[in-house]
């Protein structure tokens, strides 16, 4: 008898066969107002970041008018500390924020899921060891952990993605571990094990599908935090380096001209704020759809 057939007869919770649960959940969340506004906002900001360079009136590093000029026909949002067009730099400065924060989130969630699965499934000292390491990583304030690593190695982009991802992974690992521990106690997983079905197959067919729903909300939270940390790093001067355009970096560069051309700081700030509000609204919508009640919030 085929293993796949056997599994379906072992009392696995019945689901709508046509679509996985998490797809149904996503579709259902689209009726949620938080989700609708958040998704629209997030997609708009991503589009702005990706397609922005096509619409920029000037090169992001071309001198347009005197430094910190107020808005004019030439430069609709005025100029920055070097006399470059603020609008063009804003349109060019989102790609790095979006790319780095998505990459860091993806890496962190992937790492967390792998660690959590191994810890939850190991039933040995490996569990204690992995969770111990997670707790140490969790003890670092995120920004401090990243700063410690860039202090000597320098602000390399891969390093930022890896360390920000690493700082996210413990929470994902804990969540994955607790779901896994819960699942492997269930009869259909025990039966599958007794039937000699490989662990990999049990992961893929039984555990992963049940992980996706709680992970969706967690991933949303992680994404919002990634955007904040990555923008903060650039703002501190340890992220993307000049002369590249980057929202966080722009804030830092133009702070001294706040009183002369407020848009040179306000424009990148609003982009970061709208992006994080968008991703957070999406997460809130998802979480309300999953729980059916108000979400409890998350540690800052």
């Amino acid at each position: 008898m085929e293993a796949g057939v056997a599994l379906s007869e072992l009392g696995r919770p019945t689901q709508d066969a046509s679509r996985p649960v998490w797809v149904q959940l996503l579709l259902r969340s689209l009726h949620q107002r938080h989700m609708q506004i958040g998704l629209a906002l997030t997609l708009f900001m991503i589009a702005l970041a990706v397609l922005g360079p096509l619409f920029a009136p000037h090169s992001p590093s071309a001198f347009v008018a005197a430094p910190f000029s107020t808005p004019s026909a030439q430069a609709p949002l005025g100029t920055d500390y070097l006399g470059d067009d603020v609008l063009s730099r804003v349109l060019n400065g989102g790609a790095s924020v979006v790319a780095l924060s998505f990459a860091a989130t993806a890496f962190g969630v992937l790492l967390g899921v792998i660690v959590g699965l191994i810890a939850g499934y190991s039933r040995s000292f490996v569990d204690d060891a992995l969770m111990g390491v997670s707790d140490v990583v969790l003890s670092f304030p995120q920004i401090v952990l990243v700063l410690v690593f860039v202090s000597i190695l320098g602000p390399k982009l891969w390093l930022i993605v890896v360390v920000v991802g690493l700082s996210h992974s413990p929470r994902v690992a804990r969540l994955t571990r607790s779901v896994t521990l819960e699942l492997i106690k269930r009869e259909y997983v025990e039966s599958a094990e007794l039937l000699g079905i490989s662990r990999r197959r049990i992961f893929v067919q039984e555990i992963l599908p049940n992980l996706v729903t709680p992970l969706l909300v967690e991933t949303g939270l992680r994404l919002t935090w990634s955007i904040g940390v990555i923008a903060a790093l650039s703002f501190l001067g340890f992220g993307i380096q000049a002369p590249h355009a980057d929202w966080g970096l722009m804030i830092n560069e133009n702070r001294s001209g706040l009183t002369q051309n407020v848009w040179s700081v306000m424009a990148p700030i609003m982009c970061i704020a709208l992006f994080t509000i968008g991703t957070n609204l999406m997460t809130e919508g998802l979480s309300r759809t999953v729980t059916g009640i108000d979400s409890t919030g998350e540690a800052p």
Partner: protein
Amino acid sequence: MSVSAQDLAQLELASAPVVPRQRRNLWVLRRVLVGLATLVALSIVIFAATQALPGNAAKEILGHNGTPAEVATLTHQLGLDRPVVSQYLSWAGHAVTGNFGSSLANREPVTTLLDPAILKSAILLFLSATISLIVAFALGVLAAARRDRAVDHAINAFSFFFTAVPEFVIALWLVMLFGTTVFKILPAVSLFPPGAGAFSDPQVYVLPVATLVLATVPYLTRLVRGSMIDAMESQYVRMARYKGLSERRILVRHALPNALVPAIQGMAQNLGYLAGGIVVIEYVFGFPGIGTALTQAIGVRDIPVVQASSLILASFYVVVNLIADLLVVFVTPRLRTGG
């Protein structure tokens, strides 16, 4: 591995009659040991990232301009010519006694450099945490008492907004609003004249504290609101209502204590968050605290200062969580007596 108060509660409930006090003491001992082990692990990570990485840290610090002689001197000064384990042990041994070596930038002992910064950051943290606690309790209780009404929704929207937006964005909005563009009533930069004490100009604390309060209030408010609502629906509050107690008295005397444990845990989370938050916020305001010391030291690759300030910030989180866990055990009657 961490042991939470919940673990202890489960242990108490699941086990056969035991000597409760002894069991609790064992738990406390174990929790303290876990905290100490975490501190050691933190110091290893910081040391490894700053001094034990492959490649020559001395060369990295001096850049392309360093002559071989300079590199050799710095290598010796940092102790990089010794085995890694012995480097770590001597660094950690000195760190325990509060000796973090000398700053590479100006040759002063690191502690002389950091002490005034730590004091100012501590004041910043204390003010922020205290005000945040008071505001969060007020808002949380108010939201719970007016559940699902306009006030509740307004508080919810406020919480949502300030949770979503990164803290340095809040800081810069406040600067524009009160420091530079709209009103010019508060200092946008936290200047301390040389030699002046930490309280020479209390105004410089206003905007940094306001930022950190806005960033930490939402999480705590939601916790307080949640536990108040749980309490309001409980049997004992219904009983109090039957007895004819006023709603106000029920709220303050019967429901509020229920928010104590979540509030302690929420405060610990918030303080831990603040240890990272002050790094960015101090930078925004040029506030001369430990966060600024860290970012400046990274800028000039002053390793001893980077090590000391990051270790202090990270240890703070561990210690706060340890204290919070112990507090929870001592304020929860069921855990205190084991009954």
